[in-house]
């Protein structure tokens, strides 16, 4: 299993370099494993709470892709903190194409 690196800016502005992302795990699970501040994931990855919300770096947005309709429903309801590259990290499954991914954790709800 290849190791996937991601760089996340947490809710306090600290940059967290993670180097052991595993193919098939979600970005939320990886962030939780490293206690990245601001990724709370209250619903446990069910796409039902928007507490694992992050902003994908513009350069990575195409590689990550756009939210499906169920995720879109959630993002619509956090309009006050939504940005064009907003995604819920529980809906992003890691693969080698995302090695080097950069994203910023959105403020709490």
């Amino acid at each position, binding site marked *: 299993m290849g190791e996937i690196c991601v760089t996340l800016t947490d809710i306090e502005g600290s940059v967290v370099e993670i180097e052991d992302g595993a193919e098939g795990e979600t970005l939320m699970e990886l962030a939780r494993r490293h206690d990245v501040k601001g990724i709370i994931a209250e*619903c446990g990855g069910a796409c039902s709470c928007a507490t694992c919300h992050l902003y994908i770096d513009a350069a990575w947005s195409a590689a990550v892709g756009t939210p499906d309709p169920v995720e879109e429903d959630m993002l619509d309801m956090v309009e006050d903190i939504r940005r064009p590259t907003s995604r819920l990290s529980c809906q992003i499954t890691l693969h080698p194409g995302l090695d080097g991914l950069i994203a910023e954790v959105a403020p709490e709800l």
Partner: protein
Amino acid sequence: MTIVRDAANDDTQARPGPEGEDARLVEEATLLDPVVHKQPRRFYAAMRKLDPVHYDAALDMYLVSRWEDIQTVQRDPLTFSVNKGYHTQQAKGFAEEFQQILREKGGGYFPDAIMSDPPYHTRVRKLMESAFTAHRVKDLEPRIEAVVDGLLAELADKGAMDAVTDFAQPLTIRIICEQLGLDWSIKDRIARWSTAVTAQIGRMQDREEMLGHAAQICELQRYLIAKMREREADPREDMISDIVHARDGEGEGSVLTFEEAVSLIRALLIAGNETTATALSNLVLILATEPAVAEMLRASADDDRLMNRFVEELLRIEPPVRGLSRMTTKEVELGGRMLPEGAHLLLLYASANDEPEIFPEPRRFDMERKNIMKHVSFGGGVHKCVGLALARMEIKVAARLLVRKFADVRLAIAEEDIAYLPTVATRSMESLPVTFTLND
């Protein structure tokens, strides 16, 4: 798309009253008082202003009324224990006798495995989460539509219904029966069992009522245990089979114990219908009393985005859960007050949802709130409602189909005569008679 709520729940109830009156309310009122219990918003507003973590002596609990403090509690499940809070609340005053009855006649006393603290809770919760993802619930939408359609068709010719017992409860019971793999014919018993289980954290039952409720819970447990035995031997495509056979990893703790499984299936059955039924009853009440909201719903029925927002705002403005408990595991400061170890807390969700600094004009039904999901009606933190996606879907489908089929929904009793179940755990109407006509 906004309107101001009128009638009994008018906007002023979310705001504090005159200074002296508020001080007197905070000093003298209790959530157990029948008048406060029925219309608590003014009491909540007074507490938020004067004493946000207020000791209610009659209840022997601290009432947590501000959004920020509720959030602090929810984000720290080790300091603020659900296990101690919930199980201290359960059958309070009669706990020993209650547990003894269940052991003798109900197959055992099974503490609620999900009402526990991390790390134990993490393991149990994980075994339940996969059943409830938003994507899995999305697949259920056609089935939920069929159930709601069938129910509305049965009611259509009558021109009148009890929104609680003819509509809301049968709907949610039918869905959870299908999910669990239970026979829908037991619906009347499930309604009774739900009341009995909820009453245990409601703090408003006397001993005689406790004995009646305990007998109901014994019957419920014996029924579920028999169903579990069937599924152990003969697994099917349903959630009882899923739980009985659930496995996460290998070795110790990878499967649920029998006691845990009984408690989880019991929790799914009760929580899966009681609170959602309350939300559906609230939906009918708001349609019957606020024509502008009914109009808003009609205009939104064909737009999924607007329907999602309608559901969320309905949950914010009238949360089904009144208050759930926590207990401090150490001395801690909350909202400017030092709490001792062992302080018993009740989190008042409706109060947090009424905070004007977070939700401007909180009594206004406003589907376009930019922070619409900030309400705490599903709780929060590791204990956030596990069934929230299913609840949202049931309410959305019911609201959409109801407003398409029925028109001119009106109360058949005076609004001030609506009675609420005697419990501090939920704000549930006992009955809601309405009349209606049919759309062409």
